[in-house]
């Protein structure tokens, strides 16, 4: 799980996400939306870069709606991984938009 605030800044990612992203959250710390969306170099199966605005979590943040995609990322350990990502907006009790969460996993095969 990858959790961001209302402006897309990274708040936290958990231990399973650390395995896929190639670095412990304690080592990366908080990152701006611009930083993390570039750091993990999302790309399609042909190796073409996916623009930040087309990454599911950024769609969720800008349009406040769920999003999904399957693509490749290069972890901070340098390993290229095929991942599937579903992201959802997070709303508070009063309906305030509080940010978004991306649930993702490595695609096998």
């Amino acid at each position: 799980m990858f959790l961001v605030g209302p402006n897309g800044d990274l708040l936290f990612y958990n231990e399973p996400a650390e395995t896929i992203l190639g670095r412990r959250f304690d080592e990366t710390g908080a990152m701006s939306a611009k930083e993390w969306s570039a750091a993990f170099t999302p790309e399609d199966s042909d190796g073409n870069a996916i623009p930040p605005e087309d990454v599911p979590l950024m769609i969720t943040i800008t349009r406040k709606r769920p999003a999904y995609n399957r693509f490749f990322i290069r972890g901070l350990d340098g390993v290229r991984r095929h991942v599937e990502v579903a992201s959802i907006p997070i709303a508070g009790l009063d309906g305030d938009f509080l940010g978004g969460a991306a649930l993702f996993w490595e695609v096998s095969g």
Partner: protein
Amino acid sequence: MRVTLFGTRGSLAAPGAETTRYGGNTSTVEVCANDGSLLILDAGTGIRRLAKQIPPTTARIDILLTHLHMDHIQGLGFFRPLYDPDVDVHIWGPASSMLGLEARLSRYLSPPLFPVHLRDLPKVVCHEVPRPPFNIGPFRIQTALVCHPGPTVGYRIEADGGSVAYLPDHEPALALPNGRWPAPDWVSGYDLACNADLLVHDAQFTEGEYASCVGWGHSTYQHAFEFAAQVGAKRLITFHHDPSHDDDMLDRLLEDSIRRFKMSCLAAAGREGAVFSV
């Protein structure tokens, strides 16, 4: 049920002349049922002294860990019954999403942090919580994840007709919508503490300190008092005192809070050695 505080300090042990009344040991609480059955809540530095008072005939001890921050497990390696082959020690605590409780505890109970491996202790069994309500002897235990960084569990213990809620590290006020307490379903720890006879609750910070520590997982006196009122606790014990707060400051914080918040229940600051009948 008898509840005895053996360590009330948060974050770091704070021995010294300025903390002699409330104590300097970190979180450790003994819960003893009328039949003599024993639970220990957290294994802070207070657990070393607690061990000396356990009857030598005791064959089973259950240690309930809220989480694995150092101030809650630092005493574990100095708890003598762990090395006694005639005593079954059951340790309950949270796993993380990648590691079980035993593996997590082994990070502390192994070199270089500690000379003895957890696996070399004679009769230690680890159990993971939270889980559905369960029994240990005469105790009915309820567990739930609560608001604190990393996997952290709160406990409700019922026995002999009484109830204790133990939430030593807890920030239920984090991100309260417009400063208002939401419906009970949305309040961290509510089910555990609802109508508890005794609520042992985090009150680490002053309001001034809290302003720069939001999200660190701790409460102010105001938060603790408001939470106690929300859940309808009958008695509140403030706990996890900041290591920089001396005895006189803890006296002042409690007195000010009682005056400001007009509690409907009894309130006291957790003091090492204090005993409560529940």
